[in-house]
């Protein structure tokens, strides 16, 4: 995109230079009559004014909306992470109710072994993995992933995060982080002339990101044996 733009820009500068030379008036210079000048500037103004209603007629549905409750959500998610750090582990039910935490994925696997061991990538994010034992032996492993609020500026894009890929096979739960995700946002700032009187002290927005944390909650049948394995310190059994 930007390459096309810079090409257009070069083209325009070229035209500008050609015009400059034209203004240098060679031998048979014919002046641009003021009538033409007024026409050109009038046309320019006219086109710009015409654009105003066009802008308001464009449907605004596809845009990213911003949220107001950013601070609360972030505080709540920070609180959660603190609790986790301090070994206060929430149950899945708690997480569902918490503000600033979103369920990202939910999968159910059949138990195919009496033991559950883990295959974790060493390099993936420091996901806390909470294991909750069910009251019953239903032979099913429910895996839910949660993410805490993810913001950039005031944009909540938590829901766009891909959950890690989780599979259970032969008593081995493997967790693969998704490919590196990139998110691009285009933030428009109002003109400084408007910002000065728009109760906004700066027209340039703080667009600092707030990265989320993922929590994986695994609910296992009551009798399933858990083998934490090498990276077992990340796995907490409630």
């Amino acid at each position, binding site marked *: 995109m930007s390459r096309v733009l810079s090409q257009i820009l070069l083209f325009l*500068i070229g035209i500008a230079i050609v015009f400059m030379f034209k203004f240098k008036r060679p031998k048979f210079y014919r002046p641009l009559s003021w009538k033409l000048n007024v026409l050109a500037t009038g046309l320019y103004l006219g086109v710009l004014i015409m*654009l105003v209603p066009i*802008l308001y007629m464009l449907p605004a549905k*596809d845009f990213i909306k911003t949220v107001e409750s950013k601070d609360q959500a972030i505080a709540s998610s920070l609180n959660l992470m603190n609790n986790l750090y301090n070994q206060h582990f929430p149950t899945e039910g708690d997480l569902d109710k918490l503000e600033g935490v979103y369920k990202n994925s939910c999968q159910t696997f059949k138990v195919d072994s009496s033991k559950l061991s883990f295959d974790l990538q060493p390099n993936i994010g420091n996901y806390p993995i909470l294991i909750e034992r069910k009251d019953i032996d239903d032979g099913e492993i429910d895996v839910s992933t949660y993410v805490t609020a993810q913001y950039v500026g005031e*944009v909540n894009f938590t829901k766009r995060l891909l959950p890690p890929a989780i599979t259970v096979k032969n008593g081995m739960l493997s967790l693969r982080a998704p490919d590196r995700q990139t998110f*691009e946002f285009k933030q*428009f700032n109002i003109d400084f002339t408007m910002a000065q009187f728009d109760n906004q002290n700066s027209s340039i*927005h703080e667009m600092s990101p707030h990265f989320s944390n993922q929590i994986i909650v695994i609910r296992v049948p009551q009798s399933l044996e858990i083998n934490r394995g090498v990276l077992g310190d990340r796995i907490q059994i409630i």
Partner: protein
Amino acid sequence: MMSLKEVDLLSISIKQYVYKLKAYSTLFYGLLLAQIITLFFSLNGISHMSSSNGELSVSVNSYSASLVIVFSFFWILFAAIQLTTKQYKKIENPLVTNRISGNLSNIGFLMTACVFGGITSSLVGVLLRIIMYFTFDRSQIISDEFILAFSDLLLGISVAILYMVLISGMGYLTGMLTKVSMAFVIIIPAVIIGISKAYADIFQSLIKFFTLESSLPLFALKVIITSILMFGVSILLSNRGEVSQ
């Protein structure tokens, strides 16, 4: 034939204003060019931020049409200075004129240029939004200020006009001072740099006097009074006597 039919200063000034509007109409191409070029610069974004935490990276491109307005400000500054130059003054000679009518018509022209510049520079923001709407991935656009409130647009136009009036007054006064003495060509930048270095707080409060004013009526009042002062001093300077030929 001998009777001196009094000529009306105002009607002569208006005639001169119309004459100059046509005469200087080529000046507007400079503004158009500046606005279009800065529009395309603005399409590349004014700032870029990206960060990552290992698993994901987030980048935010900031867009703004402010650059267009800033360049329009530069244009009005140079236009105002240019009007005071000998080359531009010379076109008054074949007309019925005196110093005051010449200045009044210049000010009239500058005010027109300010209104035109203020409106167009703010409306280029609309054009920028429309171009972005059709050429960018809309799902990446944050709606917040992309959707421009009409009241904000009107506000932006009036504030841009006011700033341009202020800047044109500064330019005109600067040009007039240099007509009084070429020494001002050196003195004015020296004083500005001097004050900004040695008395940074005074200089900043001078700028903040306008830029941090958050009440529009107060801002308008400040701008109008300052501009009247600057234009008034300019007229007095030029009316003072024979300007060096």
